[in-house]
């Protein structure tokens, strides 16, 4: 049986190796040259503005106001960064963003995992209905919650606190997290649970000793993906936070506009560079995990 199969598979496996060179010789492949040029152009459009942002943050004010925007700066200066730190509260803004991101991520991961466990592993009669309920949160725009939450917060004195930002950020991110955990829990074989059950483990011990430790990778994915959106959240922070001491990065950056009558653009750009650095570093170091997470988040959800 195996002997005749072997020679039959060989030509097909050899085919991909031999084909490309033949095709390349026949035509100087205009298509691939064109597509490479196009890709390069699009990448420039995506990346150049960010590079320009950084270059501008190193320009002198005079150079910025008079020069050609594409030209390299005539001299480099770190003065803009000094002014950026003097004008604003960058350190505090970064700390606040960090607290909000951590708090929301904690809720998203823990509660997302719990809900997925109840829906996927424990199972119950109305689980379809509950799943549908969570689907609403994916479709509905966040703006619907602004007015009601503002009113509710002011009645219970929660306006202008960390929880006022954390609650809606976590609430609206929860459905996606539940879907990611659910689809991961599907892969844990039922026998694992049944064996543990026979050994007398109840649902709580199974959650703590089996499900939780196995989910580390999914936790990383969920945290990375959500961190991008929470770290950069503008709308909830702008609506619920008033005092300087609680402002997150997006709000802190806004202070630079017109703070002194006329906007100090080079210092503003320096501040932008400082505030995007933490997330950018995380992204560049962990971009494989992040990219994977974004892909799976969308294709499964």
């Amino acid at each position, binding site marked *: 049986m195996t002997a005749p199969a072997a020679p039959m598979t060989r030509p097909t496996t050899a085919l991909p190796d031999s084909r490309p060179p033949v095709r390349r010789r026949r035509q100087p492949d205009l*298509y*691939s040259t064109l597509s490479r040029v*196009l*890709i390069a152009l*699009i*990448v420039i459009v*995506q990346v150049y*503005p960010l590079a320009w*942002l950084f270059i*501008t943050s190193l320009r002198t004010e005079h150079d*910025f*106001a*008079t020069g*050609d925007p594409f030209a390299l700066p005539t001299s480099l200066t770190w003065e803009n960064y000094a002014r950026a730190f003097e004008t604003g509260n960058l350190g505090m803004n970064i700390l606040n963003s960090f607290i909000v991101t951590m708090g929301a991520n904690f*809720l998203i991961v823990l509660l997302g995992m*719990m*809900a997925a466990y109840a*829906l996927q*592993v*424990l*199972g*119950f009669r109305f689980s379809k209905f509950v799943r549908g*309920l969570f689907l*609403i949160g*994916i*479709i*509905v*725009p*966040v*703006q*619907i919650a*602004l*007015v*009601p*939450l*503002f009113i509710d917060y002011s009645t219970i004195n929660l306006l202008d606190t960390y929880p006022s930002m954390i609650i809606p950020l*976590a*609430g*609206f991110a*929860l459905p996606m997290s*539940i879907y990611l955990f659910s689809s991961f829990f599907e892969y844990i074989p039922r026998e694992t649970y049944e064996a543990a*059950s026979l050994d007398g483990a*109840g649902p709580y011990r*199974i*959650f703590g000793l089996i499900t939780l430790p196995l989910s580390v990778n999914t936790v990383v994915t969920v945290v990375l993906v959500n961190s991008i959106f929470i*770290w950069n959240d*503008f*709308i909830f922070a702008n609506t619920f936070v008033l005092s300087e001491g609680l402002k997150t990065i997006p709000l802190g*950056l806004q202070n630079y*506009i017109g703070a002194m009558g006329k906007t100090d*653009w080079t210092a*503003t750009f320096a501040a*932008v560079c400082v505030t*995007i650095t933490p*997330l950018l570093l995380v*992204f560049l170091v962990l971009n494989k995990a992040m*990219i994977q997470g*974004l*892909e799976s988040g969308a*294709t499964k959800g």
Partner: protein
Amino acid sequence: MLPNRSRLSVLVFLLPPLLLYGIAVLFPIMQSLFLSFFSWNGISDMEFVGLANYVRMLTADDIFWRSFFNALGYLAICLVLQLGGALLVASLLTSMRRGRELIKTLYLLPAVISTVAIAFLFVRIYSIEPVGLLNQLLHWIGLGALERPWLSDINTVLAAVSAPEGWRFTGLYMLIIYAALLSVPKELEEAARLDGASRWQLFTKIRFPHIMPVWITTTIMATTYGLRGFDIPYLMTNGGPGQSSELLTTYMYKTAFTSTDFGYASTIAVFIVVECLVAVGLILFMLKRKADA
């Protein structure tokens, strides 16, 4: 279902997430619906007005309709840039042999940056005094006649505030579509190529039908995100000049927090939700009809 589970354990795991979700999402939705039948400025007593807010919105509010059509324009530009750009780059990327990972990373870079930073950046790109990147570029390629202050020209401002949102998330959608394109079976493409299919036929007959489910998800994502777009127009122009870049979301926000007309703002918010649901329904309906045909 676990054999040893009790009804109590299900509740223990389910209640905390439902509580948070209820407080943050479900209850506010009900509350908005409720408030939309009232007239209330947050201080005086609430006054029940029935459908008056809805009547005012649909028949007597020009700004509302202006914002609605602006929002559709904004959505169209975002969709073209995000889905079109994503599909184009993803397809090109599959034919490349090296550097795919690098390009994916670079392409995704703008998605990591906050909308406030992006708004600042684009204000300078569009500016005319001192001359920004866009105007300088137009000058160089001989289209100097098109130079203008993009954000204060009522004919260009809507496009100018939509483009950054499109630019920001193209990379995200590209990733998703690229992952789907990679899953197209190689044997299928190979067989079609041997039968003499052109690149275009390969794309329309084999690849695109194969990624259809992902394409639908992506379209729905991009549409709902486009309809809730807020940050960049709000930060760059705050709806101006006049109402030429006002979206439903920015109009609702200003109605709520500048005019403190909570009742009417809730009416607009309800409309935005309905609009999102209708859009998702329409996409599913159209695609289903296409699939049946």
